[in-house]
């Protein structure tokens, strides 16, 4: 997904001179050629995330489209007020591309974990939040949204699904039909979710857009009222979208995701996913528990 970002962003910089890339001293090598080809429009702005976002807003005020890139906890949590005020409140366009969401930097510890980005950013009116599951999906979503009039957050994940979907911004897709429960999965959890749901009478919906959310596809494909969210971030971050999609319906909603606690162990991301029940075994257990309840 990182390579897809470097390639697609470089292409966009070449096609549209309004685009400016601000790097928080991250990913610099991948954009070294772009920096030579597009002088002044690829800036390693320094390790000052809150000011990087403010500078991005100023670029937007001058008619440019900034893309800001660094590690998720720093660009989202440290710079949250700048994202909210400088972009959200001022209704300015731009893109934030993060790496290191949730526990992608597992061994670096809690300072570098960020399972709260999705729920935190969701509080900003008008923001677009995208969580592609493959490099191809990342490029597609970036191309669909990079030049629109909104602020867009796109999460680069270290893990990718094996197969890409044709991804339409703002739309979900039905990737398995069934009747006893509906499984709603996001971004890089698609493969594990499909493996977990194999042979079970459940439907699976796949999303790469958290905001805007495809309420319609949820309304059309939840028959039993039993819903399992597979969220590669804090549990229940998107539960409000599901409830909003199904007004007045009796629902039984569970979420597999990271519990709201500091994950003080290190290791690999895959170990944390397993520990949180976000691996195939954990997701299958959650599905079986839900349909047997």
């Amino acid at each position, binding site marked *: 997904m990182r390579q897809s970002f470097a390639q697609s962003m470089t292409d966009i910089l070449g096609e549209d001179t309004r685009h400016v890339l601000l790097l928080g001293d991250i990913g610099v090598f991948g954009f070294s050629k772009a920096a030579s080809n597009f002088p002044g429009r690829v800036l390693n702005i320094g390790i000052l995330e809150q000011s990087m976002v403010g*500078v991005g807003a100023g670029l937007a005020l001058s008619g440019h489209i900034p893309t800001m890139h660094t590690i998720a906890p720093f660009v989202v949590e440290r710079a949250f007020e700048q994202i909210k005020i400088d972009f959200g409140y001022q209704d300015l366009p731009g893109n934030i591309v993060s790496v290191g969401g949730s526990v992608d930097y597992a061994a670096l510890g809690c300072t570098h974990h960020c399972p709260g980005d999705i729920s935190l950013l969701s509080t900003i009116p008008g923001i677009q939040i995208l969580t592609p599951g493959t490099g191809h999906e990342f490029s597609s979503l970036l191309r669909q949204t990079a030049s629109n009039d909104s602020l867009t957050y796109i999460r680069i994940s270290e893990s990718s699904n094996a197969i890409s979907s044709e991804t339409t911004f703002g739309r979900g897709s039905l990737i398995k039909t069934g009747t006893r429960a509906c499984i709603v999965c996001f971004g890089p959890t698609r493969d594990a979710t499909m493996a977990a749901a194999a042979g079970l009478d459940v439907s699976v919906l796949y999303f790469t857009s958290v905001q805007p959310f495809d309420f319609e596809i949820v309304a059309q494909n939840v028959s039993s009222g039993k819903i399992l969210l597979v969220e590669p971030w804090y549990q229940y971050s998107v539960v409000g979208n599901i409830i909003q999609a199904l007004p007045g319906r009796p629902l039984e909603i569970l979420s597999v995701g990271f519990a709201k606690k500091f994950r003080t162990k290190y290791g690999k991301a895959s170990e944390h996913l397993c520990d949180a029940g976000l691996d195939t075994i954990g997701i299958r257990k959650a599905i079986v528990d839900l349909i047997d309840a």
Partner: protein
Amino acid sequence: MTPEERMRSLKARILDCASSASEGHVPSALSILDILWVEYAFVMSEQSEKGLAVDRFILSKGHASLGIYAVLEALGIIPTHWLDTFGSFDSPLGGHPDRLKVPGIEASTGSLGHGLPVGVGLALGNRLAGDNSRVVVLIGDGEANEGTTWESAAIATHHELSKLILICDFNHSGDRALSMGSIEQKFRAFGWTTAIIDGHNHEEIYGALTVERQSEPLAIIANTIKGNGIPSMENNPAWHHAFPSRDQLSQLKEELR
């Protein structure tokens, strides 16, 4: 109208609005009023008349919004009746300025420490676009506590933003918490050209805002008095976010100078 009469008129207007709305940071507005008037009524007006690129002005200390509203009204940039509605539910004019509602407002501000980074980005973007406009950002000395001030100062120097001007309204409101000492020396240490002026002297303000420069950004440290022009309000922290009652309004207007 003489300059002195003009300034008294603007101050009276600010007092009336704050009293009527029970809202506004009057002493902060009076602290920067001379700077705002010189920038909008002289520097920007002259640029416009000569067909030059006009400054993009960011009021980073947005709580002093009454000051900029009064100036915009006096220059006919916003309609007169707007200020009569200041702070009310449907008014375009709030306690902090909203760029999407008010002509002449470049950035929506309120949370301190946002204006300078945005100004740096605007200056970078203008240069990329071949736009010769200067970017002028007004902050307070208390606001200079914010780390973004110094992060942005470093970025501006690194990128040689010669068309960026920072004005620091040095009214010492930050002294009670975290005094910054010499803000002028700090900006100089960051590689900026600096100037120290009397922020209530129109000639000094005009001179500092029109000086020719080379590659460095410019920091103008404007020594000011919070509540300037109303003796009982000057440097009196009780008035920071207080609004004159009807009785107080008459008294304060009598004091106006």
